[in-house]
């Protein structure tokens, strides 16, 4: 670990935390497109994985993917605008929080179907392998997806075809109100991956450097055609989505989970090792807050998409739009149609 890299990872984690807090504000101001907002607070150590990726690597995420995307270099203003359903958002206000994508940064799409994006990295891995580019494709998903059959079909293919692929499970201990031990008969998920022939590791989600060490080894092997599985052992600090107050878990459990704070751990270590002073860290925190305040203000001020844009992007540019209903009715009922 180089000192600057560790400091940079702290900065990225702080930016994610600040971003997610502003997403909460966007909702409270009634400016978000809907309430299906899944915050990744508590899961910021995923930066250990995103930091082990390179430009040109591709990835997919689940519905709780804001942190992953920021880790891969997203512009928070365009992200926030998308979450607000605005025209200059990453997906022109069509996708929202659960469907952000950016081909330029390798983001092949966030997904609101649990497990939906996982097999895409198998295909993306074939692209990397066949191009001989040395690049990898990473699927980010939650512990909930460990119950979807498509994950195992995908793992088997990745192992069988020796694809440069990583399956990265952000285990925040819950799928909605269901704790992992209520959704799995046997919770040793890395053992499942190993059984398919993958390199498998579990890392402490309160320690971004531990995640980064594990991710470094796995991505190195993956680039040489040995696919891997990384589980980030974290805790979902807040409810499943904005409306969920988590009545199914105790305040004691939550306090314990939140004590495993990757930002707290990183901050303490950076200070203890003399890598950054309290003032340096405070500066990083302040910069992140200011940046995300701007992103929030941008999203609120941004323009909603024109109504006619709903017909765009169903099919490729240059092909006819789906026929709007108004046109169809006109063709049936107008006087001209009768003549």
């Amino acid at each position: 670990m180089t000192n600057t890299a560790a400091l940079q990872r702290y900065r990225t984690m702080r930016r994610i935390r600040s971003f997610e807090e502003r997403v909460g504000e966007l909702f409270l101001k009634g400016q978000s497109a809907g309430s299906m907002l899944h915050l990744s607070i508590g899961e910021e150590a995923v930066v250990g994985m995103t930091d082990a990726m390179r430009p040109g690597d591709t990835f997919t995420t689940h519905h709780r993917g804001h942190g992953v995307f920021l880790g891969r270099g997203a512009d928070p203003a365009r992200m926030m605008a998308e979450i607000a359903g605005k025209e200059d958002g990453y997906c022109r206000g069509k996708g929202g929080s659960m469907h952000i994508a950016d081909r330029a940064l390798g983001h092949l799409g966030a997904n609101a179907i649990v497990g939906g994006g996982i097999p895409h990295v198998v295909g993306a891995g074939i692209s990397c392998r066949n191009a001989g580019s040395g690049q990898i494709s990473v699927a980010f998903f939650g512990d909930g997806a460990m119950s979807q059959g498509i994950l195992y079909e995908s793992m088997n293919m990745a192992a069988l075809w020796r694809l440069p692929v990583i399956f990265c499970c952000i285990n925040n201990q819950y799928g909605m109100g269901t704790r992992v031990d209520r959704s799995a008969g046997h919770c040793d998920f890395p053992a499942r991956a190993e059984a398919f022939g993958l390199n498998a590791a579990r890392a402490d989600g309160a320690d971004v450097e531990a995640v980064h060490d594990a991710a470094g080894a796995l991505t190195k092997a993956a680039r040489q055609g040995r696919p891997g599985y990384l589980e980030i052992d974290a805790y979902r600090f807040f409810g499943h989505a904005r409306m969920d107050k988590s009545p199914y878990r105790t305040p004691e459990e939550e306090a314990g989970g939140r004590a495993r704070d990757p930002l707290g751990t990183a901050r303490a270590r950076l200070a203890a090792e003399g890598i950054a002073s309290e003032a340096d860290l405070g500066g990083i925190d302040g910069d992140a807050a200011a940046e995300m305040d701007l992103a929030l203000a941008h999203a609120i001020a941004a323009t909603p998409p024109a109504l006619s844009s709903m017909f765009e992007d169903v099919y490729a540019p240059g092909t006819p739009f789906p026929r709007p209903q108004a046109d169809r009715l006109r063709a049936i009922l107008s006087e001209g149609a009768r003549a």
Partner: protein
Amino acid sequence: MIETTCREAIRQALVDAMTADPSVILIGEEVGIYGGAYGVTKGLIDLFGADRVIDAPISESAIVGAAVGAAMTGLRPVAELMYVDFIGMTMDQLANQAAKSRYMFGGQIGVPMVLRTQGGTGRSAAAQHSQSLEAWVFHTPGLRLVMPATVNDAYHLLRQSLTQPDPVVFIEHKGLYTMKGALDVATPDGAWGQPVVRRQGGDLVILTYSRMLHEALAAAGQLAAQGVEACVIDLRCLNPLDEAPLIEAVKRTGRAMVVTEAAVTGSVASDIAARLSEVCFDWLEEPILRLGGEDIPIPVSPALEKGSIPSADLIRDAALWLVLRKAPPWAA
């Protein structure tokens, strides 16, 4: 008779069915301790225990498949799919297994299960959580399909579904859970398979179902103020569906439209319009119109989402055009 919500009516139907018939079980994601993503199954695990209210992992295909097996062996499972959008993940179990077992096995093995789910727009939940996919079910012989629009129907159609010998897909609308209305547990609005006239009128017929019923009724109110009387028929059961009352109403008025929230191409509305056109051809003054969702995925932006499905205003405009030949401003 009590005043309650659709959510409570569905819950009451489950409680009453489970109390009356110990073979009824629930299986689905978050149906137990969490009480259902939309709160429909709240408290049922306390009433009936974890052997009958089964919290399942996020494994839709196996949830439906397990329900098929349970139904084959004497239980009467209610499988819950949190969103109808996830039906794709279950489609083999639903369309190849549940729907076809009785037929393929020469009538030996029936699958008396109910798949409860919900769909529709209104929450800016985007393209994978807002769809109206009833046509996928409708197109599959062997499946029954029910979509309630009122509180009383939410209760009775679910109770009736739980007496059927074959698989029933019961699709609720997320926008109706908090809607209030009258529940009379002793009196259904209509028999299984029967459409129900929700408003009388002699100038045209508006055929619809699920949440669009309420847009149609609002439109009918506006039309009445302009001297046009619309007959509004709630289809409720899309399969089985007794067409006789629909045919009678269309022949009587000579003007009809079928309204759905689903993308209009290949929709249930398209099929019903086609059936009625075939039979009522000589009685029609105007073509039977289809009003539906635009043929696009559902966008997240609230204005776009709303603009992509029919509204009371659109229904009113189309009706005035149909009946009075009065073109709306947007026709220009």
